[in-house]
Each structure stands twice: as structure tokens, then as C-alpha cells.
């Protein structure tokens, strides 16, 4: 009964999505207020229908309904409740439903919070969202129905892939999808603007919160995925330039460019065409990411099933939305004349440079990600593009970006001079140089990490300098505290996000100095790494809910003093006939002590020991970036999303 209800509400959602698209586009085009007034309630109905369907799927998973094929393929009665729930989106069908649910949530938010939008704009935005939802709902109903029944019912499910049974991964897809789908809203705004042929400061004011929210969620989603890879996969790495990772990085880069260029539209009414283009690009890359992961083109843990029918369907959707969007852009972009003019050296100019560099990085990553597929299809060559390519091709582009990031905020709008801005940063440059030399002196000829430390110092202290300048810390120290409280939250957010990237780079630079060793130890023996002694005390069996484990007890000592006891595990899941390693990690914030249990032989075990300096700061920095985005979002001016008085706009 429940699966049928879910299937029915999915069909209902398709009908509602079509109605939203039809009434919205027709009503706005013909200026029919009655039709346009229908659109927000219909969008709310779409949200309710998809939500009901999603709840039905979760209910099927929680009750372990073995007549539903998705449940049979991905769940098991012995699985902990959290993974029964998260398992509902840990597979192809369920994750598509989650995608559509988040899209419907966005549409619902536009319907409810967008009451102060011009009604034609709101109707068009909702219509475009409805159109996107239509495509994906049709895709689900046609090729990947989450509620398909099997008869006779299976005895029990096959279980979820053990490495996906993890709290970090339970929340990774929803966050990532919030990011991907958030760009659908900016896409919808861009399409609506193209149809109307009008982009103004108010448009920028509506688009920027969505870009900010999507970007913040995407940041969190990527960080969570990277953190998961770090502690769960047990290789001690945090970013592998895997195509799936790149698929999430691409919309992040485009979204980062978008939220910066939207500032220029909002404040200065310049760069309009470019911002619309970026809004299209960010969603195009989000869809490309969905296509790459969901079509089974990639061979990785993320591609649950490869079914060419699905791939072609998603490719068709991709062509339709992206191709349609860019065709409309080509046709209508001339209509948007820029009004704000600016000199090359100015705040606007700095933001253009930021956009240009971010897009160049995105282009390089895109080529590196797609080239192996292209070579396979067209040239028949089996090629892989690994981390060395991405590192050597993106770092030279990231360097000027980081250099400009600290200088840009010091430049006034319209026209600026470079030298005064640089003069305010001399002590920051000195600190960065100090970090570089210190690292070279302490660690020897390790140029990469040394440059990383310099970049981190430049960004963190650069953000601090900007903050000090804004509150007049040096010029009027007494009033500084009051000014800090009065500072718009958007300014706090920007400073925090820039510093957050610095903190992430600090972690990356630290990881550049990571060391590891392998040791074959018998109980009682010990190995040393980076000043810590790891003594193996015992290896014993341990049992879990749905797995059996071998657990080693490793005592870590520093100068004879015990630091911590680490318990790395090797888990074997009888159901999936799989073995996974659970790394044991102890963080001191300055470094992670990271131990992985390898195979057992000759009465001993192989331990892989990693010393990862500053590793936790990578994800902490990402958290700061997302927090900065959130702070900026909570600013009254973005929240109200209404044209503010002129004076307020000028002050920021």
C-alpha cells in the first residue's frame, strides 16, 4: 500500500510540475494575473506531493518492505535505523527522489518567501523550476522508479554497501544536493531575466542569496565527502581528483564566481550579461555532475548501476536544459545593456579577475575530468588523468587568485589605485614571507608546502587586515568595538569566508608534510614515526551490529609518556562479503595520528601509520567558509531582498 501511495504521489507531482510550468510561462507571457496567482499554490502542492512520496520511500526502508526492489537491493533488516533511513537515498532511485525533493523545496521557498517579487518574475522562476522538476520526475517514472515491486518477496535485503554505512555519508548527499539544486533557482532567475530582457540591481539582490545558500551547502557537502574519504577509506588522503569529486568541485567554482559577480550587479549594475551566463553555467555544471555520477559513466563507488537507458535519458535532459538555456542566452543577451562603468583597476576589476581565474580553474578541471571519456569514445585509448595533472595545471591559476583575494577588498568601487591597497597589506606580505622562510628553514627543500603556508598566512592575515580597516582598528581604536558590532553581517561573512579558505590552505600545506610508514609488528613490538612511538598491545576479535571485526590495540607514546590508545579495526561484512578498514584517528589539532590495520601474518600484523600535520584544519576551514556564507545570508539586506534605500547600498 505504502509503495503504491508513493508511486501515485510521484505521478501527481509530475502533473503538478507540468501545471506549474504551463501556468507560469503562459500567465507571465500573457500578463494574466489569475494564472500567475495559481502558480505559487501549485508549487506548494508539488512540494507536498514529492515530500509524501519521499516519506513513503523512507517508510518502506524503515519497515524493510522486501517487496520493493530498491529496498531488496540496498537494505537489510539488521541494519541500524540511521542507515535504513540514509540508505533510502544511498542508491540511484532514492537519490534521484531526494534531488527532486530538494528542487521542490526550493520551489516552495520561492513560492512562500518570494511574495515580494514582481509576480511575473516569480511566476517565470517557478515555471522554470517546474520544468526542471518535470524532466526529472519523468526520468524517475520512466527509468528508475523507486517503488517497483518484486514478486515473490525476497527473504531479506542485500544490505547497503558497507563503506556507505557511515554517519558522515548519511548527510553528504543531502548537503551536496542542496548545493546542486540551489543553483537551479539561480538558473531559473537567469532564464526569467532573459525572457524579460531585464537585469537590474533588484535582480542581483534576489539572485545573490540563492547563490550564497547553494554555495555554502555545496562547500559543506564537499567538505563532508572529503572528510569521509579521509577517515573511512583509510588511505590517509582527503582529495583524489576522482571524477566524482571533480563533478562537485565544478559547480562550486562556478558558484563562487557567480556569487561574486552578483555583488557587482547588485551594487553597480555592471557585468549583467556575464552574471546571467555564470548562473546558467553553475546549473549546467551541477547537471553535468548529476549526469556523470548517475549515468554510470564513471566507474567508481558512486555509480551504483550502469544502465545505458538512464544515461541517455539524463544526457537528453542535460542537453535540453543547458542547450535551451544557452540558446536563449545567445538570442536575448544583447537586450541587457550595462549601465555601470568602471576602470580596470577597481573593486569591479578585482571581481572580474576573480571570475576569470575561477572560470579558468573550472575549465582546466572540466577538461581533465572529461578527456579520459572523450579519449575512450573517440580515440579508443584507455587513459587516466590523475592528481599530478590537476595539481600542476590548477595551482599556477590558484596562485594569482589567492594573491588577488587579499588585495581586492581594499579597492574602492569604480576607480582605484593599486599602490595604496598594497601599502595597507605590507605587514601581511611580511608575515606571509616569514611563513615561507620559516617552513623552508624547518622542513628543508619543500617548496610546495612552504608556498602553501605563505598563501595561508596571506589570506588569514589579509582578512584580518580588511577587518581591522573596516572597523578602524588602527585609526580610531576606541570606536573600533562599536564599529565591529555595527558592521553589516555581509562584511563579516566575506571576511570569514576569505579567512576560511586560508585555514583550508593551511591544512592542505600541513598535509603536504605528511609522512607515513608501514610496520610489521608482533604484540609488544613498537614502531616510531615523527616523534611518536606506536606500540602494538594486542589484536582481538570484536563484534558489531552487522559485521565482525578484528581490532588492534595500539598504545601511542611520546617520550615514554602514554598519549592515547588507538583501536584500528578491520571489519568484515558477511552479507556484502566485503572487508573494510576503520582507521583509528587521534587529533591534537596540530596533527592527526592515524593508524590503519593491515593484513595479519607470521603472528604479527601490518600497521600503516600516518602522521598528518594540521589535517583537521582543511575541513574546519571549509566550515568557516560555509559559516561566512551563512552570516552573509543572514544580513538584513539579503534577507529582506527588497530594494534598500540608496544610502545603505552606498555604505557597503
Amino acid at each position: 500500500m505504502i509503495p503504491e501511495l508513493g508511486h501515485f504521489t510521484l505521478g501527481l507531482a509530475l502533473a503538478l510540475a507540468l501545471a506549474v510550468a504551463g501556468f507560469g510561462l503562459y500567465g507571465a507571457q500573457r500578463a494574466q494575473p489569475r494564472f500567475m496567482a495559481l502558480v505559487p499554490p501549485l508549487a506548494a502542492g508539488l512540494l507536498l506531493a514529492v515530500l509524501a512520496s519521499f516519506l513513503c520511500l523512507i517508510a518502506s526502508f524503515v519497515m524493510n518492505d522486501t517487496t520493493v526492489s530498491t529496498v531488496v537491493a540496498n537494505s537489510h533488516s539488521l541494519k541500524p535505523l540511521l542507515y535504513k533511513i540514509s540508505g533510502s537515498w544511498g542508491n540511484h532511485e532514492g537519490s534521484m527522489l531526494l534531488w527532486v525533493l530538494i528542487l521542490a523545496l526550493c520551489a516552495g521557498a520561492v513560492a512562500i518567501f518570494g511574495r515580494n517579487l514582481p509576480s511575473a518574475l516569480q511566476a517565470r522562476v517557478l515555471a522554470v523550476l517546474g520544468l526542471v522538476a518535470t524532466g526529472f520526475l519523468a526520468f524517475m517514472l520512466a527509468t528508475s522508479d523507486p517503488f517497483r515491486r518484486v514478486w515473490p518477496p525476497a527473504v531479506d535485503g542485500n544490505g547497503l554497501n558497507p563503506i556507505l554505512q557511515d554517519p558522515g555519508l548519511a548527510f553528504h548527499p543531502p548537503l551536496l544536493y542542496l548545493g546542486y539544486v540551489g543553483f537551479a533557482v539561480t538558473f531559473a532567475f537567469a532564464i526569467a531575466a532573459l525572457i524579460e530582457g531585464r537585469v537590474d540591481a533588484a535582480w542581483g539582490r534576489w539572485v545573490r542569496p540563492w547563490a550564497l545558500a547553494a554555495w555554502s551547502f555545496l562547500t559543506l557537502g564537499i567538505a563532508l565527502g572529503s572528510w569521509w574519504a579521509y577517515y573511512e577509506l583509510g588511505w590517509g588522503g582527503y582529495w583524489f581528483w576522482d571524477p566524482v569529486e571533480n563533478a562537485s568541485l565544478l559547480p562550486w567554482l562556478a558558484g563562487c564566481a557567480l556569487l561574486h559577480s552578483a555583488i557587482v550587479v547588485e551594487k553597480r549594475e555592471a557585468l549583467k550579461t556575464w552574471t546571467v551566463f555564470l548562473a546558467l553555467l553553475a546549473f549546467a555544471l551541477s547537471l553535468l555532475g548529476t549526469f556523470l555520477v548517475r549515468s554510470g559513466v564513471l566507474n567508481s563507488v558512486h555509480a551504483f548501476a550502469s544502465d545505458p537507458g538512464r544515461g541517455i535519458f539524463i544526457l537528453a535532459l542535460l542537453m535540453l536544459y543547458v542547450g535551451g538555456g544557452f540558446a536563449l542566452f545567445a538570442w536575448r543577451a544583447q537586450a541587457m545593456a550595462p549601465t555601470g562603468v568602471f576602470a580596470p583597476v577597481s573593486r569591479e576589476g578585482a571581481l572580474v579577475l576573480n571570475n576569470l581565474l575561477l572560470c579558468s580553474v573550472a575549465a582546466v578541471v572540466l577538461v581533465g575530468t572529461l578527456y579520459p571519456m572523450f579519449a575512450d569514445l573517440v580515440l579508443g585509448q584507455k587513459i587516466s588523468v590523475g592528481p599530478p595533472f590537476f595539481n600542476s595545471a590548477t595551482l599556477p591559476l590558484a596562485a594569482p587568485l589567492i594573491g588577488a583575494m587579499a588585495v581586492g577588498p581594499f579597492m574602492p568601487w569604480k576607480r582605484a589605485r593599486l599602490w595604496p591597497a598594497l601599502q595597507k597589506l605590507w605587514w601581511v606580505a611580511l608575515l606571509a614571507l616569514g611563513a615561507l622562510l620559516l617552513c623552508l628553514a624547518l622542513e628543508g627543500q619543500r617548496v610546495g608546502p612552504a608556498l602553501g603556508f605563505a598563501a595561508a598566512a596571506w589570506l588569514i592575515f589579509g582578512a584580518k587586515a580588511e577587518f581591522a580597516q573596516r572597523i578602524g582598528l588602527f585609526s580610531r581604536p576606541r570606536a573600533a568595538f562599536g564599529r565591529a558590532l555595527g558592521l553589516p553581517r555581509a562584511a563579516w561573512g566575506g571576511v570569514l569566508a576569505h579567512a576560511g579558505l586560508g585555514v583550508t590552505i593551511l591544512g592542505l600545506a600541513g598535509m603536504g608534510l605528511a609522512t607515513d610508514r608501514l610496520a610489521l609488528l608482533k604484540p609488544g613490538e613498537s614502531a616510531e614515526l615523527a616523534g611518536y612511538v606506536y606500540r602494538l598491545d594486542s589484536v582481538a576479535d570484536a563484534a558489531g551490529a552487522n559485521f565482525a571485526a578484528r581490532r588492534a590495540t595500539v598504545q601511542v607514546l611520546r617520550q615514554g609518556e602514554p598519549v592515547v590508545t588507538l583501536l584500528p579495526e578491520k571489519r568484515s561484512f558477511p552479507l556484502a562479503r566485503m572487508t573494510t578498514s576503520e582507521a583509528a584517528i587521534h587529533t591534537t589539532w596540530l596533527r592527526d595520528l592515524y593508524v590503519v590495520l593491515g593484513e595479519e601474518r607470521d603472528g604479527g600484523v601490518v600497521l600503516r601509520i600516518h602522521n598528518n600535520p594540521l589535517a583537521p584544519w582543511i575541513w574546519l576551514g571549509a566550515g568557516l567558509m560555509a559559516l561566512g556564507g551563512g552570516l552573509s545570508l543572514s544580513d538584513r539586506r539579503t534577507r529582506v531582498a527588497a530594494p534598500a534605500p540608496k544610502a545603505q547600498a552606498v555604505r557597503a
Partner: protein
Amino acid sequence: MTRKKKRLYLLLLCALGLGSATALTLTAFQDNLVFFRSPSDIARDVPGPERAFRLGGLVETGSLARSTEAGRPLARFVVTDGAHQVTVAFGGVLPDLFREGQGVVTLGKLGRDGVFQASEVLARHDETYMPPDVADALRRSGHWNPNQGAAPPASSWNTLQPGRGGG
């Protein structure tokens, strides 16, 4: 400054950005593209010892030998595509999913002695999974005609005879 001149600056900047991105991509491609080779490819055309590539095939049953060298575990095994074999040496912990008789992809360089020195061993999938590159190598070596149905079970591949095997 006139608007035309400004636009020119902007265009120049864009061209510079795109140009440098292209140049970086091309030079990085030149140095860092990693090709996939099967044991048969290596027998046909022996690659030099300076270039890293990916070697894939099946781990021959009974070929895995483990030893320890100065506290560091060493593994040696034979990778086969049925027609040819390559011995692989790997110093490190083999992945959890590494099994004899199953598909494996390794990254490394071919030494002058003909032993493949692997720096990475990838066996990230469950035991019914065949890496696409390996499946393709097996098909090319004449062990499996995809037109005659699904691939035979992975554990039997290295006992099949070239030309006779398949569907």
C-alpha cells in the same frame, strides 16, 4: 578612458586567462597522462622505465607471495590477461578487496628486469565487479566475445585458453 578601450582591456584579460589555462592544460597533459596497458600490450611494445602507466588484468591464482624487507611488507604477484603475464612487485598493504583470481589495476613503472614496480594497487570493488579496463583487455586478448553473452566468472579466467574461451 573610453568604453571601447575598456572593453579591449577586458577582452585581452579574458584571452590571457583562457590562453594560460589552455597552455597549462596542454603541458600538464604532456607530462601526466597515464595510459592503461594490458600484459599483451606490454609484450607487443615494451614501455620505457621512466614513464608511469596503469597495468590491469587478473591476479593469477597461486601467484601471490608475501615477504618482509626491513620491516616493510612486500608483495609479488602475477597479472595476466590470459595471453601474457607480468610480474608485479608492490611494497605496501594490499587493499582489502585484493584477491587472487580477481581483477586488479596497478599504477607504476616497468623496471628493466621486466618486473612492474607498483606504487599503487587499486582493487576498490566487490568480488563480482570487473574493472571496465580489465574487461576490455580480456576481450582484446581473445578470451571473451561480448556477443556471446556475459563474461564467465572472474576466478576461471586465467585458466582459459586464448581463442577457445568465451561465451
